[in-house]
Protein backbone atom coordinates (compact mmCIF):
# COMPACT_ATOMS: atom_id res chain seq x y z
CA UNK A 1 0.00 0.00 0.00
CA UNK A 2 1.46 3.36 -0.91
CA UNK A 3 1.30 5.79 1.97
CA UNK A 4 0.24 9.31 1.42
CA UNK A 5 0.78 11.06 4.73
CA UNK A 6 4.36 12.15 5.10
CA UNK A 7 4.04 11.65 8.84
CA UNK A 8 4.10 7.89 8.46
CA UNK A 9 7.58 6.58 7.70
CA UNK A 10 8.10 4.11 4.87
CA UNK A 11 8.54 0.58 6.23
CA UNK A 12 10.86 -1.67 4.27
CA UNK A 13 11.91 -5.28 4.80
CA UNK A 14 15.52 -6.13 3.94
CA UNK A 15 16.28 -9.84 3.75
CA UNK A 16 18.78 -12.25 2.32
CA UNK A 17 17.06 -15.31 0.91
CA UNK A 18 18.72 -18.71 0.83
CA UNK A 19 22.18 -19.90 1.74
CA UNK A 20 24.33 -16.82 1.36
CA UNK A 21 26.54 -15.33 4.02
CA UNK A 22 27.47 -12.09 2.29
CA UNK A 23 25.43 -9.47 4.10
CA UNK A 24 27.61 -6.40 3.80
CA UNK A 25 25.64 -4.98 0.89
CA UNK A 26 22.31 -5.57 2.63
CA UNK A 27 23.60 -3.80 5.74
CA UNK A 28 24.91 -0.82 3.78
CA UNK A 29 21.55 -0.47 2.04
CA UNK A 30 19.64 -0.89 5.34
CA UNK A 31 21.68 1.89 6.85
CA UNK A 32 21.20 4.21 3.86
CA UNK A 33 17.43 3.68 3.96
CA UNK A 34 17.44 4.35 7.71
CA UNK A 35 19.35 7.58 7.16
CA UNK A 36 16.72 8.51 4.58
CA UNK A 37 14.11 8.28 7.37
CA UNK A 38 12.71 4.85 6.65
CA UNK A 39 11.93 2.11 9.17
CA UNK A 40 13.99 -0.84 8.04
CA UNK A 41 13.05 -4.28 9.31
CA UNK A 42 16.30 -6.16 8.98
CA UNK A 43 15.53 -9.87 8.74
CA UNK A 44 19.10 -10.86 7.98
CA UNK A 45 20.65 -14.03 6.65
CA UNK A 46 19.31 -17.37 5.44
CA UNK A 47 15.66 -16.50 5.11
CA UNK A 48 13.32 -18.84 3.29
CA UNK A 49 10.84 -17.28 0.83
CA UNK A 50 8.08 -18.34 3.26
CA UNK A 51 9.72 -16.45 6.13
CA UNK A 52 10.24 -13.38 3.98
CA UNK A 53 6.62 -13.18 2.86
CA UNK A 54 5.37 -13.88 6.36
CA UNK A 55 7.56 -11.08 7.73
CA UNK A 56 6.39 -8.68 5.01
CA UNK A 57 2.74 -9.32 5.90
CA UNK A 58 3.18 -9.16 9.70
CA UNK A 59 5.32 -6.04 9.52
CA UNK A 60 2.93 -4.44 7.00
CA UNK A 61 5.83 -3.17 4.92
CA UNK A 62 5.56 -0.86 1.94
CA UNK A 63 8.51 -2.46 0.20
CA UNK A 64 10.69 -5.59 0.16
CA UNK A 65 14.41 -5.51 -0.68
CA UNK A 66 16.16 -8.82 -1.37
CA UNK A 67 19.91 -9.13 -1.50
CA UNK A 68 21.55 -12.15 -3.08
CA UNK A 69 25.06 -13.08 -4.13
CA UNK A 70 24.78 -16.84 -4.20
CA UNK A 71 23.50 -17.24 -7.75
CA UNK A 72 20.22 -18.81 -6.60
CA UNK A 73 18.09 -15.78 -7.53
CA UNK A 74 16.24 -17.58 -10.34
CA UNK A 75 15.05 -20.18 -7.83
CA UNK A 76 14.33 -17.94 -4.86
CA UNK A 77 12.92 -14.67 -6.27
CA UNK A 78 10.12 -16.28 -8.34
CA UNK A 79 9.17 -18.23 -5.20
CA UNK A 80 8.91 -15.01 -3.15
CA UNK A 81 6.78 -13.42 -5.89
CA UNK A 82 4.52 -16.49 -6.09
CA UNK A 83 4.00 -16.53 -2.32
CA UNK A 84 3.18 -12.82 -2.33
CA UNK A 85 0.58 -13.54 -4.96
CA UNK A 86 -0.87 -16.40 -2.97
CA UNK A 87 -0.98 -14.17 0.11
CA UNK A 88 -2.80 -11.42 -1.84
CA UNK A 89 0.17 -9.18 -1.17
CA UNK A 90 1.35 -8.37 -4.68
CA UNK A 91 0.79 -4.70 -3.91
CA UNK A 92 4.07 -4.81 -1.99
CA UNK A 93 6.80 -3.95 -4.51
CA UNK A 94 9.99 -6.04 -4.51
CA UNK A 95 13.43 -4.73 -5.41
CA UNK A 96 16.68 -6.65 -5.49
CA UNK A 97 20.41 -6.21 -5.30
CA UNK A 98 23.45 -8.40 -5.75
CA UNK A 99 25.19 -10.28 -8.51
CA UNK A 100 22.49 -10.85 -11.11
CA UNK A 101 23.41 -11.32 -14.81
CA UNK A 102 21.59 -9.01 -17.26
CA UNK A 103 19.75 -11.88 -18.90
CA UNK A 104 18.37 -13.04 -15.53
CA UNK A 105 17.57 -9.46 -14.54
CA UNK A 106 15.39 -9.07 -17.64
CA UNK A 107 13.49 -12.25 -16.78
CA UNK A 108 13.08 -11.25 -13.14
CA UNK A 109 11.70 -7.85 -14.13
CA UNK A 110 9.16 -9.60 -16.32
CA UNK A 111 8.17 -11.74 -13.36
CA UNK A 112 7.56 -8.63 -11.28
CA UNK A 113 10.79 -7.57 -9.56
CA UNK A 114 10.45 -3.79 -9.81
CA UNK A 115 14.11 -2.74 -9.67
CA UNK A 116 17.44 -4.56 -9.69
CA UNK A 117 20.63 -2.90 -8.46
CA UNK A 118 23.98 -4.34 -9.44
CA UNK A 119 27.42 -3.59 -8.02
CA UNK A 120 28.39 0.08 -8.20
CA UNK A 121 24.85 1.45 -7.92
CA UNK A 122 24.92 4.67 -5.88
CA UNK A 123 23.08 4.78 -2.59
CA UNK A 124 21.25 7.89 -3.82
CA UNK A 125 19.79 5.86 -6.70
CA UNK A 126 18.74 3.05 -4.37
CA UNK A 127 17.15 5.43 -1.83
CA UNK A 128 15.25 7.47 -4.40
CA UNK A 129 14.02 4.38 -6.27
CA UNK A 130 12.96 2.75 -2.99
CA UNK A 131 11.04 5.86 -2.02
CA UNK A 132 9.27 6.02 -5.38
CA UNK A 133 8.36 2.34 -5.25
CA UNK A 134 7.01 2.64 -1.70
CA UNK A 135 4.98 5.75 -2.48
CA UNK A 136 3.63 4.18 -5.65
CA UNK A 137 5.16 6.84 -7.89
CA UNK A 138 7.72 4.68 -9.71
Amino acid at each position, binding site marked *: *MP*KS*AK*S*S*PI*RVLIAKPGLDGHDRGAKVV*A*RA*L*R*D*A*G*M*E*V*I*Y*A*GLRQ*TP*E*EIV*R*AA*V*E*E*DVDLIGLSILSGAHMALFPRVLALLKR*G*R*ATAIPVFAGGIIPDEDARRLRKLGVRAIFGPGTSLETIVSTARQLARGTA
Partner: protein
Amino acid sequence: MTSGRSALAAAKAIVGGDRRALARAISAVENGDPESGALVRALYPRTGRARVIGITGPLGVGKSSVINALVRHLRAVGSSVAIVAVDPSSPFSGGSVLGDRIRFERDATDAAVFFRSMASRGEEGGVAATTREVVRLLDAAGFDVVVVETVGSGQVDLAIREIASTSVVVLVPHLGDEVQTLKAGLFEIADVFCVNKSDLPGADLARKDLSELVGLGGQRDGWAPAIVLTSALSGTGIVELWGAVEAHERFLDRSGQRAAAQRRRIAHEIVGLVRERVGREVEDRLERDPELRRLLDEVAARRLDPRAAADRLFEAAGRRRRRP
Protein backbone atom coordinates in the same frame (compact mmCIF):
# COMPACT_ATOMS: atom_id res chain seq x y z
CA MET B 1 -10.72 1.64 6.97
CA THR B 2 -12.39 4.86 6.10
CA SER B 3 -15.47 4.88 8.30
CA GLY B 4 -16.88 3.50 11.51
CA ARG B 5 -18.41 0.65 9.57
CA SER B 6 -15.12 -0.41 8.00
CA ALA B 7 -13.49 -0.16 11.44
CA LEU B 8 -16.09 -2.67 12.62
CA ALA B 9 -15.30 -4.91 9.65
CA ALA B 10 -11.60 -4.68 10.43
CA ALA B 11 -12.28 -5.46 14.09
CA LYS B 12 -14.26 -8.52 13.07
CA ALA B 13 -11.48 -9.70 10.75
CA ILE B 14 -8.89 -9.27 13.51
CA VAL B 15 -10.94 -11.23 16.02
CA GLY B 16 -11.50 -13.88 13.34
CA GLY B 17 -7.74 -14.42 12.99
CA ASP B 18 -7.00 -12.39 9.85
CA ARG B 19 -3.30 -11.58 10.34
CA ARG B 20 -3.15 -9.15 7.45
CA ALA B 21 -6.00 -7.12 8.91
CA LEU B 22 -4.17 -7.19 12.24
CA ALA B 23 -0.90 -6.02 10.67
CA ARG B 24 -2.63 -3.16 8.90
CA ALA B 25 -4.51 -2.14 12.01
CA ILE B 26 -1.20 -1.96 13.88
CA SER B 27 0.14 0.41 11.22
CA ALA B 28 -3.01 2.53 11.47
CA VAL B 29 -2.55 2.82 15.24
CA GLU B 30 1.17 3.58 14.89
CA ASN B 31 0.50 6.28 12.33
CA GLY B 32 -2.36 7.77 14.32
CA ASP B 33 -4.75 7.34 11.40
CA PRO B 34 -8.11 8.90 12.28
CA GLU B 35 -9.94 5.55 11.83
CA SER B 36 -7.73 3.77 14.33
CA GLY B 37 -9.66 5.30 17.24
CA ALA B 38 -12.90 3.63 16.16
CA LEU B 39 -11.07 0.35 15.67
CA VAL B 40 -9.48 0.34 19.12
CA ARG B 41 -12.85 1.29 20.60
CA ALA B 42 -14.56 -1.61 18.84
CA LEU B 43 -11.93 -4.07 20.10
CA TYR B 44 -11.52 -2.75 23.64
CA PRO B 45 -14.22 -4.96 25.20
CA ARG B 46 -12.29 -7.99 23.94
CA THR B 47 -9.04 -7.00 25.63
CA GLY B 48 -7.75 -7.90 29.07
CA ARG B 49 -7.43 -11.61 28.48
CA ALA B 50 -3.80 -11.91 27.32
CA ARG B 51 -0.86 -12.14 29.70
CA VAL B 52 1.27 -9.12 28.83
CA ILE B 53 4.94 -9.64 29.70
CA GLY B 54 7.65 -7.00 29.38
CA ILE B 55 11.26 -7.88 28.60
CA THR B 56 13.74 -5.11 29.27
CA GLY B 57 17.43 -4.62 29.99
CA PRO B 58 20.60 -3.08 28.57
CA LEU B 59 21.86 -3.40 25.01
CA GLY B 60 23.20 -6.77 23.95
CA VAL B 61 22.21 -8.83 27.00
CA GLY B 62 20.18 -11.19 24.82
CA LYS B 63 16.60 -9.92 25.18
CA SER B 64 15.64 -11.03 21.68
CA SER B 65 17.30 -14.41 22.12
CA VAL B 66 15.58 -14.96 25.48
CA ILE B 67 12.25 -14.14 23.80
CA ASN B 68 13.00 -16.53 20.97
CA ALA B 69 13.63 -19.31 23.49
CA LEU B 70 10.54 -18.34 25.51
CA VAL B 71 8.35 -18.48 22.41
CA ARG B 72 9.63 -21.96 21.63
CA HIS B 73 8.70 -23.04 25.16
CA LEU B 74 5.27 -21.38 25.00
CA ARG B 75 4.48 -23.07 21.69
CA ALA B 76 5.56 -26.42 23.15
CA VAL B 77 3.01 -26.02 25.94
CA GLY B 78 0.32 -24.92 23.49
CA SER B 79 0.09 -21.16 24.11
CA SER B 80 -0.24 -18.71 21.25
CA VAL B 81 2.08 -15.72 21.47
CA ALA B 82 2.55 -12.31 19.90
CA ILE B 83 5.76 -10.31 20.18
CA VAL B 84 6.16 -6.53 19.88
CA ALA B 85 9.85 -5.61 19.67
CA VAL B 86 10.70 -1.92 20.00
CA ASP B 87 13.92 -0.42 18.66
CA PRO B 88 14.93 3.24 18.67
CA SER B 89 14.24 5.76 15.92
CA SER B 90 17.05 8.07 14.94
CA PRO B 91 16.48 11.53 16.40
CA PHE B 92 18.15 12.93 13.28
CA SER B 93 16.57 11.17 10.30
CA GLY B 94 13.52 9.63 12.01
CA GLY B 95 14.55 6.35 10.44
CA SER B 96 15.47 3.15 12.21
CA VAL B 97 16.85 -0.30 11.72
CA LEU B 98 14.59 -2.79 13.48
CA GLY B 99 16.81 -5.78 14.03
CA ASP B 100 15.05 -7.89 16.64
CA ARG B 101 13.52 -10.15 14.05
CA ILE B 102 16.95 -11.46 13.17
CA ARG B 103 17.06 -13.54 16.39
CA PHE B 104 13.68 -14.96 15.72
CA GLU B 105 13.38 -18.50 14.40
CA ARG B 106 10.13 -20.31 14.02
CA ASP B 107 8.04 -22.39 11.72
CA ALA B 108 6.93 -19.94 9.02
CA THR B 109 3.56 -21.67 8.80
CA ASP B 110 2.73 -21.41 12.52
CA ALA B 111 -0.24 -19.03 12.73
CA ALA B 112 -0.18 -19.05 16.54
CA VAL B 113 2.86 -16.76 16.58
CA PHE B 114 2.93 -13.15 15.43
CA PHE B 115 6.01 -10.92 15.43
CA ARG B 116 5.92 -7.17 14.95
CA SER B 117 8.82 -4.72 15.05
CA MET B 118 8.11 -1.17 16.20
CA ALA B 119 10.20 1.97 16.04
CA SER B 120 10.10 4.14 19.16
CA ARG B 121 9.35 7.22 17.01
CA GLY B 122 10.83 9.78 19.34
CA GLU B 123 9.39 8.39 22.55
CA GLU B 124 11.67 7.91 25.53
CA GLY B 125 11.04 5.28 28.17
CA GLY B 126 11.74 2.20 26.07
CA VAL B 127 8.52 1.83 24.09
CA ALA B 128 6.64 3.86 21.49
CA ALA B 129 3.70 6.09 22.43
CA THR B 130 1.37 3.69 20.63
CA THR B 131 2.79 0.41 21.99
CA ARG B 132 0.03 0.10 24.59
CA GLU B 133 -2.67 0.29 21.92
CA VAL B 134 -0.82 -2.13 19.66
CA VAL B 135 -0.73 -4.59 22.58
CA ARG B 136 -4.51 -4.18 22.88
CA LEU B 137 -4.95 -5.15 19.22
CA LEU B 138 -2.88 -8.31 19.79
CA ASP B 139 -4.83 -9.05 22.97
CA ALA B 140 -8.14 -8.71 21.11
CA ALA B 141 -6.78 -10.92 18.31
CA GLY B 142 -6.76 -13.70 20.89
CA PHE B 143 -3.09 -14.33 21.67
CA ASP B 144 -2.62 -16.01 25.05
CA VAL B 145 0.64 -14.18 25.73
CA VAL B 146 1.89 -10.83 24.41
CA VAL B 147 5.59 -10.19 24.93
CA VAL B 148 6.86 -6.60 24.68
CA GLU B 149 10.59 -6.14 24.17
CA THR B 150 11.76 -2.63 25.01
CA VAL B 151 14.54 -0.58 23.48
CA GLY B 152 17.81 -1.76 25.01
CA SER B 153 18.52 1.51 26.71
CA GLY B 154 19.27 0.48 30.26
CA GLN B 155 18.11 2.41 33.25
CA VAL B 156 14.89 4.14 32.41
CA ASP B 157 12.58 1.73 30.61
CA LEU B 158 9.84 2.58 33.08
CA ALA B 159 7.05 2.81 30.55
CA ILE B 160 6.91 -0.98 30.35
CA ARG B 161 5.28 -1.11 33.80
CA GLU B 162 2.35 0.82 32.35
CA ILE B 163 1.80 -1.95 29.80
CA ALA B 164 2.98 -5.28 31.20
CA SER B 165 1.71 -7.10 34.27
CA THR B 166 5.08 -8.84 34.74
CA SER B 167 8.38 -7.23 33.79
CA VAL B 168 11.52 -9.30 33.29
CA VAL B 169 14.85 -7.48 33.50
CA VAL B 170 17.52 -9.31 31.52
CA LEU B 171 21.13 -8.88 32.66
CA VAL B 172 24.43 -10.66 32.06
CA PRO B 173 27.42 -11.46 34.28
CA HIS B 174 30.00 -8.67 34.81
CA LEU B 175 27.67 -5.76 34.17
CA GLY B 176 29.07 -4.02 37.23
CA ASP B 177 29.55 -4.41 40.93
CA GLU B 178 26.85 -4.49 43.58
CA VAL B 179 26.74 -0.69 43.73
CA GLN B 180 25.21 -0.74 40.25
CA THR B 181 22.41 -2.84 41.62
CA LEU B 182 21.69 -0.23 44.28
CA LYS B 183 21.09 2.49 41.73
CA ALA B 184 17.57 3.50 40.89
CA GLY B 185 15.98 2.51 37.61
CA LEU B 186 16.00 -0.95 36.11
CA PHE B 187 16.10 -2.62 39.47
CA GLU B 188 12.82 -1.12 40.51
CA ILE B 189 11.15 -2.39 37.37
CA ALA B 190 11.96 -6.07 37.82
CA ASP B 191 9.41 -8.63 38.91
CA VAL B 192 11.85 -11.25 37.64
CA PHE B 193 15.58 -10.94 37.07
CA CYS B 194 17.00 -13.05 34.26
CA VAL B 195 20.79 -13.45 34.27
CA ASN B 196 21.36 -14.50 30.68
CA LYS B 197 24.59 -15.87 29.13
CA SER B 198 24.95 -17.72 32.42
CA ASP B 199 27.33 -20.17 30.78
CA LEU B 200 29.91 -17.37 31.08
CA PRO B 201 32.00 -17.09 34.24
CA GLY B 202 30.65 -14.70 36.86
CA ALA B 203 27.01 -15.76 36.63
CA ASP B 204 26.93 -16.98 40.22
CA LEU B 205 28.45 -13.73 41.44
CA ALA B 206 25.75 -11.79 39.54
CA ARG B 207 23.10 -13.95 41.16
CA LYS B 208 24.62 -13.38 44.60
CA ASP B 209 24.70 -9.58 44.08
CA LEU B 210 21.09 -9.59 42.96
CA SER B 211 19.89 -11.76 45.82
CA GLU B 212 21.64 -9.44 48.28
CA LEU B 213 19.80 -6.54 46.69
CA VAL B 214 16.50 -8.36 47.02
CA GLY B 215 17.39 -9.13 50.66
CA LEU B 216 18.24 -5.47 51.28
CA GLY B 217 14.67 -4.42 50.75
CA GLY B 218 14.30 -5.08 47.07
CA GLN B 219 10.83 -6.36 47.88
CA ARG B 220 7.94 -4.39 46.51
CA ASP B 221 4.38 -4.78 47.76
CA GLY B 222 5.11 -8.19 49.20
CA TRP B 223 6.82 -9.64 46.15
CA ALA B 224 10.51 -10.53 46.23
CA PRO B 225 11.77 -10.53 42.63
CA ALA B 226 12.78 -13.97 41.44
CA ILE B 227 16.28 -14.49 40.03
CA VAL B 228 16.70 -16.99 37.20
CA LEU B 229 19.89 -17.96 35.37
CA THR B 230 19.43 -18.65 31.67
CA SER B 231 21.42 -19.35 28.56
CA ALA B 232 19.13 -18.48 25.69
CA LEU B 233 21.46 -20.08 23.18
CA SER B 234 21.12 -23.56 24.68
CA GLY B 235 17.68 -22.99 26.19
CA THR B 236 18.95 -23.60 29.73
CA GLY B 237 16.75 -22.03 32.40
CA ILE B 238 13.96 -20.95 30.04
CA VAL B 239 11.36 -23.26 31.61
CA GLU B 240 12.35 -21.85 35.03
CA LEU B 241 12.12 -18.30 33.67
CA TRP B 242 8.56 -18.84 32.50
CA GLY B 243 7.82 -20.53 35.82
CA ALA B 244 8.95 -17.37 37.62
CA VAL B 245 6.77 -15.20 35.36
CA GLU B 246 3.76 -17.41 36.07
CA ALA B 247 4.49 -17.34 39.80
CA HIS B 248 4.38 -13.53 39.71
CA GLU B 249 1.15 -13.60 37.70
CA ARG B 250 -0.39 -15.91 40.30
CA PHE B 251 0.85 -13.61 43.06
CA LEU B 252 -0.92 -10.66 41.38
CA ASP B 253 -4.19 -12.57 41.41
CA ARG B 254 -3.78 -13.96 44.91
CA SER B 255 -2.82 -10.63 46.50
CA GLY B 256 -5.48 -8.63 44.69
CA GLN B 257 -2.77 -6.44 43.21
CA ARG B 258 -3.73 -7.14 39.62
CA ALA B 259 -6.96 -5.19 39.96
CA ALA B 260 -5.24 -2.37 41.86
CA ALA B 261 -2.44 -2.13 39.29
CA GLN B 262 -4.93 -2.10 36.48
CA ARG B 263 -6.85 0.79 38.00
CA ARG B 264 -3.62 2.71 38.52
CA ARG B 265 -2.61 2.15 34.87
CA ILE B 266 -5.99 3.18 33.58
CA ALA B 267 -5.89 6.38 35.66
CA HIS B 268 -2.39 7.16 34.30
CA GLU B 269 -3.50 6.54 30.77
CA ILE B 270 -6.60 8.69 30.97
CA VAL B 271 -4.78 11.55 32.69
CA GLY B 272 -2.10 11.29 30.02
CA LEU B 273 -4.70 11.51 27.25
CA VAL B 274 -6.30 14.57 28.86
CA ARG B 275 -2.90 16.19 29.34
CA GLU B 276 -2.15 15.61 25.68
CA ARG B 277 -5.40 17.24 24.61
CA VAL B 278 -5.07 20.21 26.90
CA GLY B 279 -1.49 20.66 25.69
CA ARG B 280 -2.62 20.63 22.06
CA GLU B 281 -5.44 23.03 22.84
CA VAL B 282 -3.07 25.49 24.51
CA GLU B 283 -0.52 25.24 21.70
CA ASP B 284 -3.25 25.76 19.17
CA ARG B 285 -4.57 28.75 21.07
CA LEU B 286 -1.13 30.27 21.32
CA GLU B 287 -0.56 29.86 17.62
CA ARG B 288 -3.83 31.48 16.56
CA ASP B 289 -4.29 34.23 19.06
CA PRO B 290 -1.94 37.22 18.59
CA GLU B 291 -3.06 38.62 21.91
CA LEU B 292 -1.88 35.50 23.72
CA ARG B 293 1.34 35.50 21.73
CA ARG B 294 2.00 38.88 23.22
CA LEU B 295 2.29 37.07 26.55
CA LEU B 296 5.59 35.68 25.28
CA ASP B 297 6.91 39.21 24.78
CA GLU B 298 5.73 40.11 28.25
CA VAL B 299 7.64 37.20 29.74
CA ALA B 300 10.71 37.93 27.63
CA ALA B 301 10.62 41.56 28.86
CA ARG B 302 10.37 40.27 32.46
CA ARG B 303 7.06 42.05 32.99
CA LEU B 304 5.32 38.72 33.56
CA ASP B 305 6.66 35.46 34.96
CA PRO B 306 6.22 32.16 33.08
CA ARG B 307 3.80 30.70 35.64
CA ALA B 308 1.47 33.69 35.42
CA ALA B 309 1.56 33.45 31.62
CA ALA B 310 0.74 29.74 31.87
CA ASP B 311 -2.25 30.52 34.09
CA ARG B 312 -3.60 32.97 31.52
CA LEU B 313 -3.09 30.57 28.64
CA PHE B 314 -4.79 27.76 30.51
CA GLU B 315 -7.77 29.95 31.32
CA ALA B 316 -8.03 31.14 27.72
CA ALA B 317 -7.96 27.58 26.38
CA GLY B 318 -10.62 26.56 28.92
CA ARG B 319 -12.87 29.46 27.88
CA ARG B 320 -12.66 28.43 24.27
CA ARG B 321 -13.51 24.81 25.07
CA ARG B 322 -16.65 25.86 26.94
CA ARG B 323 -17.93 27.93 24.06
CA PRO B 324 -20.53 26.02 22.04
